């Protein structure tokens, strides 16, 4: 993945955000203020920020959950406002609250999502089987999701998000509540996904994980992009924590 980017820096942009502005109803300030980002194919992109910085709001705008006031979001060249169905076809989203239709069984839910994205039967069977084994929840796939543990719900969300092999995989704090082995499995899958020419965009509070895993990282504070860091630059991974602290703490003191 990293080598691919280094070899071919002119790769296509899978996610383009230009001058995005979002203000919630009755709010007196913008939750996202003039955010501009471009994510290339084949990269893992980390999104860092404190609680309330605007990470989840940005992700919700990207995935179409929240309407936005100004700016532009394009997924694989499709505008989220004018061509939203085509844009959504290219996204796989894992929410932070793992909400799913709990009255369905795991298999029913994944099939439902696969149907919506028009995944052929053989492909979905192969992928479902692979991910179920990877996340070790084959034993529960025909059980009602309502009885799943927190981690199992997270895993079924991830499987549903990947069932159509999206070009852009968006995860909102994906490691929360997962056992170490499942975290390693997700990291491996992120790497495999980007190696196949796709992009991963994820928010996290785990600076250590982001510094080890990502190609680039954006630090957001009070809805504004504070710094865009290429972690392939010398010393960038080692200094990430320091940079994050200086950017967010300085703002807090001010």
């Amino acid at each position, binding site marked *: 993945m990293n080598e691919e980017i280094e070899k071919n820096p002119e790769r296509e942009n899978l996610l383009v955000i230009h001058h995005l502005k979002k203000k*919630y109803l009755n709010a007196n300030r913008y939750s996202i203020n003039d955010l501009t980002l471009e994510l290339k194919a084949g990269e893992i992109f980390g999104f860092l920020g404190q609680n309330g910085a605007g990470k989840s709001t940005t992700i919700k705008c990207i995935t179409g959950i929240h309407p936005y006031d100004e700016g532009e979001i394009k997924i694989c060249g499709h505008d989220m406002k004018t061509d939203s*169905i085509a844009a959504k076809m290219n996204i796989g989203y894992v*929410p932070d609250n793992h909400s799913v239709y709990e009255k369905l*069984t795991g298999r029913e839910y994944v*099939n439902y999502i696969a149907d919506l994205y028009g995944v052929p039967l053989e492909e979905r069977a192969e992928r479902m089987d692979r991910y179920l084994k990877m996340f070790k929840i084959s034993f529960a796939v025909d059980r009602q999701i309502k009885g799943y543990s927190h981690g199992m719900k997270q895993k079924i969300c991830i499987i549903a998000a990947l069932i159509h092999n999206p070009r852009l995989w968006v995860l909102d704090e994906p490691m929360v509540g997962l056992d170490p082995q499942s975290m390693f499995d997700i990291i491996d899958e992120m790497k495999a996904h980007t190696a196949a020419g796709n992009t991963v965009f994820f928010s996290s509070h785990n600076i250590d994980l982001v510094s080890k895993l990502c190609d680039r990282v954006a630090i957001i504070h009070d809805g504004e992009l504070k710094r865009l860091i290429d972690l392939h630059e010398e010393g960038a991974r080692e200094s990430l924590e320091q940079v994050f602290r200086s950017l967010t703490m300085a703002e807090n003191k001010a």
Partner: protein
Amino acid sequence: MKEFLTLFRLEMKSRFGARGTGKPFLTVLKVLVALVLVGLVYAAYIFGIKQLVSMFYLYGMGNEFLILFIALSLLILTLFGISSVIKNLFRSGDNELLMRFPVSPQAVFASKISVFILYQIIFTLFIELPVFIIFGMTTGQGWTYYALLPVVLIFCIVLPLSVANLLAIPVMQIGARAKNMFTLSLLISVILVAAGFYIYMNIIQSVVNYMKEEAMGFFSKETMGIVSEAAKYIYPANWFAYMLIGEWRIGTSFLSLLVVAIFAAGAFFLNKRCYLPTILRDIEGNGATFTFVTKNKRRSPAWTTFCREFLEIFRSSNYSFQYLCMAVAAPVMVYSCNKLAATMGENTIGAVIVPALALMVMLIFCAIILSFAASSVSREGDNFYLTKIVPLSYRTQVLIKIALYMTVSTVSILATALVMYLSHQVSAAYSFSAAGIAFLVSIAVTAFAVRLDTTRPQFAVGGDGELSVGNVSTFVVLFVGFAISVVYGLFGMVGIFLWGLTKTFLILAGVSLLLAVAAVLWLMIGLDKRYDRISPR
């Protein structure tokens, strides 16, 4: 005691905490409107009770009225109590949270039951007390009546509360056993609702027939005799009443006290012993789910959404009862109502109005069934985000929901028409013409209901992911649906005499078509934008 007070305050805050709109003027306006409406309804209630008491007293059945009233109050409070005890004591959303804190189960129980008792006191003071006072004044009771009134009121609070507590645990256990038997639960619900309704309507029918045949009113010598005889055996309501009016006062006072004490002690010891284990078992059993082995299969986006929407309803006991059970039981309920309405209508106007009455009853049940559509978006709850991220237009998703509601209601309407025809209530032509009109009105009501919910959905869901508060849109749809039914019914009855039945039905069909088109346009215009604006934080 400190523990109890803290928990009680917490409980009160969670129920009645600040719920203002943030705009003081609107909040005050809402409160004022609510007060005026409640005041009007309450004034009508007091007036009605006064008339009823005077009427019973006039016919020498004052005591029987008191017994029947106490019995009815006890029954309502007990039935309300069972569901409240289960919901607020054993299945309260914060039980799991509270169990983690160093508070005793007794304090939790006491704080929750206190709120429930508070509800009962309010009900007793506002609904029961005025009736007792009106009765006392109308029948000229002495000071002992008023002196013993607080005691009877306390009995009226404690007894239903105790019985509800005793019955709650067995009811919960039966419910837990039937939890994942969806088809069986639905079938039993349908049978119970249809049978209950059929029996209820038949009782009313027999009363009507009896009065008709005997050419007498409710206060005939025979009817009064039956009621007086029955009242003697309605225990313990008759003891409470005798205690007040002074019939064998010492004996009935002792018996009343004894029965209340026995039930209260039973409830106390049962809860002391079983409250904590029941809560823990329920929390533990909450995750108990079913296994349903299926094969991977591919469906179209529209069909898969249709199936998912249906399963979400079918696999929820609440939704299944509110919607599917009512839809399946509707033909029986409409048949029973028609039978009664036809008898009463024929007596007063003539058999010619029966088709119009049948249409009105059919529309009333359509409104009840379709009011469910008013929570079509709200019911998504925490999963609403999924409807925004999937590559299926909002318009399509909404239309699929409407297709499901229309499928269920159309089947219900056709079955109802068939029952009306086969039971010779209405001719085939008019049965199915009424079904056609009901179908068009159903489209209008469904579109109207979904429109309301896409404008202002309420995603207040409980721990089970189901709606935890009454949706305002549902009440609005019910009200509008009932209003349309009554207007159609009245117009039909008048129209039959003015233009004949065929022409009347044609006019109603035309109006229904216009209503359907208008409601669909109101829903569809700007739907995508409206849906896009819905964004729970």
